[in-house]
């Protein structure tokens, strides 16, 4: 049976992610149909019944584009990332976790033992009298059951394999996804490494832009859940931390429209190496006061700088997570509940 002209093959895969990026594909709604018309999906575990061996059976480079979402935390995720890299002409890190490490990479503030200890013992909802822990292989007779390895750290996709393009967002908007697909299927690909979103900060398209005063002179930062908020005024003008000035635009201010400040999921612009450091610099510069005491009291409204400034990007930040000795030397810090206090 002669084949019709081959449609470009596309693969979708998820790694350490919440599933929101998969939702984003579904959110294309009827748009999905036109995508299906244009491409041949060869792998999409969340929606279609293909197996790993189906991918392995493809020739290297047979897939036009693989869209991977989620960070890399386990050996399975890493194996799949490498497999798809080999089979694909273009790999796209899709969504904040694949691009920057995402929320899962906040786990880089803790080492593996701390995390396992919390999840399998310390967490208040855990019932685990026998102290069970996951093992990577379990032998019973001559049968072996295996689980993926849980790596020491969470990595962004390009810290594991080469990545050609990035689509930012937690999750990316259907509009960005549609544009990304169109770009990928076109003949003229942008330079490798391009983030497929505008390169200005969110303020550019923020609906509250004009309400931001020139001089903030923040006397104290307030936390959004502890303060009444003006529905039209710039969040920063209200003393509420907004990552918008330090975050790439392209989301059309969805959170702002939903009356919440930007938390930074689109990552930095191309000119910024470390989103958190830049956000910190801009916010701290705008604080009032010349004495340590005044400055500290203004900044006290930012109790967790790492969680605030690196909510989506710790893995790709300059320091990638906790680096000092505290990490391995003081596992008690987690037992005394410091992890809970961050929740």
């Amino acid at each position, binding site marked *: 049976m002669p084949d019709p002209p081959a449609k470009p093959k596309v693969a979708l895969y998820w790694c350490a992610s919440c599933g929101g990026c998969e939702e984003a594909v579904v959110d294309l709604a009827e748009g999905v149909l036109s995508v299906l018309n244009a491409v041949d999906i060869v792998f999409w575990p969340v929606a279609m019944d293909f197996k790993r061996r189906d991918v392995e059976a493809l020739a290297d480079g047979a897939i036009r584009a693989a869209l991977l979402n989620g960070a890399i935390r386990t050996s399975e995720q890493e194996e799949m990332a490498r497999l798809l890299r080999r089979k694909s002409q273009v790999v796209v890190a899709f969504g904040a976790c694949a691009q920057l490490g995402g929320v899962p990479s906040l786990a880089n503030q803790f080492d593996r033992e701390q995390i396992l200890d919390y999840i399998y013992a310390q967490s208040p909802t855990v019932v*685990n009298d026998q102290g069970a822990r996951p093992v990577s292989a379990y032998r019973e007779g001559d049968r072996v059951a295996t689980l993926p390895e849980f790596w020491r750290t969470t990595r962004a996709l390009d810290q594991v394999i080469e990545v050609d393009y990035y689509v930012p967002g937690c999750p990316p908007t259907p509009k960005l996804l549609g544009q990304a697909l169109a770009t990928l299927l076109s003949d003229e690909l942008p330079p490798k490494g391009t983030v497929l979103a505008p390169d200005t900060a969110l303020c550019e398209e923020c609906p509250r832009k004009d309400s931001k005063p020139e001089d903030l002179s923040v006397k104290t930062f307030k936390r959004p859940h502890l303060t009444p908020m003006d529905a039209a005024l710039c969040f920063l003008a209200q003393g509420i931390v907004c990552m918008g000035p330090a975050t790439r635009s392209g989301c059309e201010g969805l959170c702002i429209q939903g009356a919440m400040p930007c938390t930074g999921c689109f990552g930095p612009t191309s000119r910024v190496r470390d989103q958190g450091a830049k956000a910190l610099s801009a916010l701290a510069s705008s604080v009032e006061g010349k004495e340590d005491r005044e400055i500290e009291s203004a900044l006290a409204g930012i109790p967790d700088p790492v969680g605030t400034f690196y909510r989506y990007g710790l893995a790709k930040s300059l320091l990638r997570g906790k680096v000092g000795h505290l990490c391995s030397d003081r596992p008690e810090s987690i037992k005394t509940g410091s992890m809970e206090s961050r929740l």
Partner: protein
Amino acid sequence: MSEAREPRIVGFFCSWCTYTAADLAGVSRMKYAPNIRVIRVMCSGRIDPQFVLKAFACGADGVLIGGCHPGDCHYIEGNYKCLRRFRLLTRLLRDLGIEEGRCRLEWISAAEGDKVRTVVNDMAARLRALGPLDAPGRFRDWGKDLEELEHAMAGEGPGESSRAIEPARNE
């Protein structure tokens, strides 16, 4: 790398006060620890927290920021902006596991050559006591996971870690 490595300090000095003070220390032939490498900026207000993180990420054990005394900034208030960033940055660094003494802000006027000497000496001694930070070494450790995987993919099966452990179920 087995012998105790000397701490490495990156200095970001404002041109008008602290850099001039460091020149004065030289003109006065004061001797201090050779651990510091100074990067000149026009004003401490130019010091982007990215520079500090970058220095640590590239292997600095300490970062010394030097600016004009409060009220004496050549650019009127740049040093206050530096101070505000520094206060928040110090907390961020602490949460990232970097001890407080590793990033230091000092106001050193153009006339205080001697202060450059004492601060650098003091910082070198403290960093020696703290031991190396070695962020690049930790980043290399990240790669170890990958090596394990490569072994596994090379057909050795799940390696050492495949010890059978008592089945544990919550039933």
